């Protein structure tokens, strides 16, 4: 009763906010500071090139295109057996839902999830990635966006 009259319940709350008034903020000032995503983060998809030979790891088997729930991948390949390479590989990131199924199903590890996530753009064509753009270093994408 006395506690209620003295508004103890309210004072507890006031104490809590006052305490946090002097602690360090936990927020990140986004465009200035950025958090690095975890290695598994599913960002934009990249087409991996073999570092030694400079050829695509992809063998254009088309499994990624088939498994894609939003059907945003188109693949065309040339050559036979081990020589088979993609000549056309398009991902429409305006449709992509970043589920990672294509990366998961790829039998040769030809695709990977980069940690690039800043895909907001005024130009929707920018999101339609072709084979050259897909195999670029993803840090370059950022520059194209900022332009």
């Amino acid at each position: 009763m006395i506690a209620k009259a003295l508004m103890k319940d309210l004072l507890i709350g006031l104490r809590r906010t006052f305490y946090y008034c002097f602690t360090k903020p936990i927020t990140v000032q986004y465009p200035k500071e950025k958090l690095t995503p975890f290695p598994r983060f599913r960002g934009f998809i990249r087409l991996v090139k073999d570092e030694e030979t400079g050829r695509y790891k992809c063998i254009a088997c088309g499994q990624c295109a088939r498994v894609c729930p939003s059907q945003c991948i188109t693949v065309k390949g040339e050559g036979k057996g081990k020589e088979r390479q993609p000549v056309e590989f398009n991902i429409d990131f305006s449709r992509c839902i970043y589920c990672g199924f294509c990366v998961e199903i790829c039998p040769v590890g030809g695709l990977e999830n980069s940690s690039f996530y800043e895909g907001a753009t005024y130009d929707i064509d920018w999101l339609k990635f072709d084979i050259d753009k897909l195999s670029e270093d993803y840090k370059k994408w950022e520059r194209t966006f900022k332009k």
Partner: protein
Amino acid sequence: MAVKEEQQFKELMAKGTSLGKVDEDIMRETIRTQDYWINMGPQHPSTHGVLRLILSLQGERIVDTEVVIGYLHRGTEKLAEARTYHQIIPLTDRLDYLASPAMNFGYVLAVEKLMEIEVPERAEYIRVMMAELARISSHLLWLATHALDIGAMTVFLYCFREREMVLDLFEMATGGRLITSYYRIGGVAHDLPDGFLDKVKEFCEIFPKRVQDYDDLLYANRIWLSRTVNVAKISAEKGLALGLSGPSIRGSGVNWDLRRANPYSVYDKLDFEVAVFDGCDVYARYLVRRKEMLESCKIVKQCAEYLEKTSGPVMAKVPKVLKPPVGEVYMATEAPKGELAYYIVSDGSQRPYRLKIRTPSFANLIALPEMVKGHLVADVIAAIGSIDIVLGEVDR
């Protein structure tokens, strides 16, 4: 004019709400007044998305509520009929986007039940852990927005701080923060990364202390109590008849948690309490979810301890092309918001013949008009918050 109003009034009385007749005493207390219609939503700060309520008011007192939904209808069930069993997983993520692992969980369990797939135990523990983390994150977001609706805006950011920790855990293990798509038919996508379990344990240590923060601001606060106690009451019997499930019905004293009642996965091996409070009001539902967060934290801890000791496969041997037998299953799981069930009709092909998703929010929303009848406008907000709806789930 007066005669016409009287006529309208009588018609309205005869029509009643969609669930029953309006209590006439509430309708006109002492003075004769005219009804006042107000459109709450689909764009309104506290309808948690695109819910639209048409309230008819006497002053600020609610006479009748009509709930209009469908603004977020994406045709998930139709889409599912055109996709393979595997491709449906990302669709289920987007039902309750605040607890997507729990949404995946129900679906993969349903397909596994249909195909009789035995899932490795380690995978089961990982799934349960993720689902419980999702429950914590969903309840945190619920508490955040519920408190914000009632005006306590600081709780919002405290809750988000802890939710961020859970999302970080999700990102670390699954690669997605909100839309995890982590579960697979027969297991999970990957094993847990190194150092993950330590982070989980750290979270389990910190979290109960942080709950104290919210308690300081809400638990005994007289304003919070006066806004929630005896508001939007619904009895157990009525609640069940109106389809309430999950925390919403446990706040009315019904001890019914599908994790205990019909244990699935490894819930029967885990030690946790079902949170039941019998206040029947908004405050009781707050208490239920508050306790549930702490219980989920316990479950996560147990899972982490188990997973630390064991290793093994996280994926059962499942054919790449899934062709379940002809038949139908109904798999109900306890999602953060209530009973989530998938009803799959299979015709033996790669794609489900029919996938009906019974979502908790949809069923819980049916009880809203009954709850808020006779209350004030401000209580509608509290009631919506207390049944914890997500429009992605309501409209599917």
